[in-house]
């Protein structure tokens, strides 16, 4: 499972990084960085939470 960020839609709310701090991070500039594109099995629930809390639907998961 991979995390895909639609960079044109991402506005940097950072809720995803709070939900999945091992996978996503807001850097000091307020830009979202994907720390781990491939989601490990034990991070699956956090990845799904990160997608769920994005207010602008900028994140999705792909097989």
């Amino acid at each position: 499972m991979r995390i895909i960020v639609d960079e044109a839609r991402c506005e940097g709310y950072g809720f995803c990084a709070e939900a999945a701090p091992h996978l996503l991070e807001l850097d000091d500039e307020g830009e979202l960085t994907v720390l781990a594109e491939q989601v490990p099995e034990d991070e699956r629930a956090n990845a799904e939470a990160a997608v769920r809390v994005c207010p602008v639907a900028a994140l999705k998961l792909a097989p």
Partner: protein
Amino acid sequence: MTSLAEGPALDLDLFSDAALTDPFPLYKQIRDTAPAVYLPRYGAWAMGRYADVRGALGDWESFSSARGIGLNDLANAATQGMIIATDPPEHDKLRNVLAARLSPKAIRDLRADIERRADELVAPLVERGSFDAVTDLARAFPISIVLDLIGLPQDGRDKVLGWADAAFSASGPPGPRTDAAFPLLQDQLAYLSGIEPDQLTPGSMGRAIYDAAADGLIKPESCVPLMSAYVTAGLDTTINAISNSVWYFAQHPDQWDMVRQDPSLIPAAFNEVLRIEAPVQFFCRVATRDVELDGQTLAEGSRVMMLYASANHDERKWEDPERFDVRRNPVDHLTFGYGMHGCAGQGLARLEGHSILGALARRVARFEVGAPQRRLNQLIRGLDALPTTVHAG
């Protein structure tokens, strides 16, 4: 071809005084009937369950905004070209202009100033002891912040709030309330059309709109509609969220104690106020194709009310949804909408809400409120007056 009105129907009036005062029993009836319910009075469908509303908001290709988000043709025509009533690619150009100034990154530098303004507003009110949480607190705060950020000249500012209120109400169904509101929406647009770019504060969000047109990023005719988006969306919404906060914490002193003991709960507490009392009750979408909803077919061309406020109370999604619980942290509530049209100003709204709650939490031990007076608006739910006494501590 499928009839537009085929499917479960309810003869509900969502816009009577009684319904606007307490719409939640009607929302429950809609949720419990079907994923989408036809409301013959409005020639529109209502969607009230969380999963369906969120799904539709996330699917702009099936649920378009470009045919208007309101329930009457006049308002839908008048709002044509406004960001709220566009689809990509037009939408994205307009959104970029707003996001460049409103995204969390763009407003980071505003935090200290907004927190200072919150303290300067709250401290003397707490000193006074008694005040109106709507007029003295909730309205005073966003008005000064938002109109300064847009860079509006002082002249005319006193009318802006009434226009914003009407701009929402004008999108209700045909009838006397809409007839009363529509001319005020036109007044707002006339006022904004009369402002020259150089009357807007240099560096302001308003000036940035005209700069974007000068740079060819948006069409010149998009400037006034974007100004209208700022002026309309940034006031009543945040105002109601702030007065609702006082109202709910007056009724739930135990929850206020929790927030005071652990101020890191403030964002969660503000989310819970937003979930339980969504200022914007609904906007519409129009189905661009036949859409399958949990065994039901919604025909192409159907106008569908997205009942955000109902979705936020959906028992299918929330445990004990009528319970106000600051520990719930419902980050995925639909009060700001969701997806492409998700509120562009939600970062600023949160900053304002968190700053006011923080300033109150540092000073107020208890709120006592008198009877709230409701302001009836066809799209916005909120209060007109809330007599409040605070006990410092």
